[in-house]
């Protein structure tokens, strides 16, 4: 009927207006029913919002876990298809490691006599 429940309550409580007792009772009941309906609708809206939030959160969590697992299980692709080429690269890598270590090893070798002398003196 589109009438504000508050207004209906006012009319029901207005003693200057003489209305049949049954009508007064019916207006009061209708006003209360409208209030209850509004409360129920609010509860349902809140419940729907909670369920949607939970669903969205679950999907996001599952996607994160899937992403984590995928990154851990996948392996890169071999650079070479030919084992001979891979072998050549391995050789080049060991040569590179050796060349880089050379200065450090030479330095260590050059101080070795000094270190030996120092240890000998300390132990005497």
């Amino acid at each position, binding site marked *: 009927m589109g009438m504000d429940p508050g207004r209906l309550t006012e009319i029901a409580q207005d003693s200057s207006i003489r209305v049949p007792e049954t009508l007064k009772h019916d207006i009061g009941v209708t006003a209360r029913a409208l209030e209850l309906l509004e409360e129920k609708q609010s509860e349902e809206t809140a419940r729907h919002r909670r369920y949607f939030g939970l669903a969205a959160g679950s999907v996001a969590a599952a996607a994160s876990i899937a992403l984590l697992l995928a990154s851990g299980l996948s392996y890169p692709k071999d650079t070479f298809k030919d084992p001979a080429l891979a072998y050549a690269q*391995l050789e080049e890598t060991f040569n590179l490691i050796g060349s880089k270590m050379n200065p450090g090893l030479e330095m260590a070798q050059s101080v070795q006599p000094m270190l030996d002398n120092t240890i000998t003196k300390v132990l005497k």
Partner: protein
Amino acid sequence: MAIAAVMLLLTVGANAQTAKEIYSKYSDSENVSAVYISSAMFKLMGKLPSMSVGNEDVNLSALVKSLQSMYVIDCEDDETIAQMKADVKSLTQKRKLELLMEAKDEGETIRIFTQGDEDTVESFIMTADDGEDGYTFISLEGTMNRADLEKVIAKAAKTIQ
């Protein structure tokens, strides 16, 4: 919802924690050259002819059979180098790799890290930071006999001057 958002952020923004992750993160970047050899490829190498490391013939078949992966990354971009250095630092700290050697020579810093025990090397990492000329990351993983590995590297170091 908030927990899921945090998990997603951790996935995307996490530092690379393994050599594989570092390779995956940087191998396709600009100004980066990268090499990966898998366990399957090492097995395919099979019975190898003598491999010349330096100027001497060395039979590396035993070492090759014990290798599971090799990653090599060479980078020349300053910004990428900075990120990669941070990831390598994180890797060596998280996995508690032992710093075996650090040498500085003519502006280049070489660091070698290993993980394993007296007889076996499970992880060998070398980084070469040459400032403007670039940054190199080498990782070897497997169950390498320590003595064999040291012999090969020592021969390579002696004969390359």
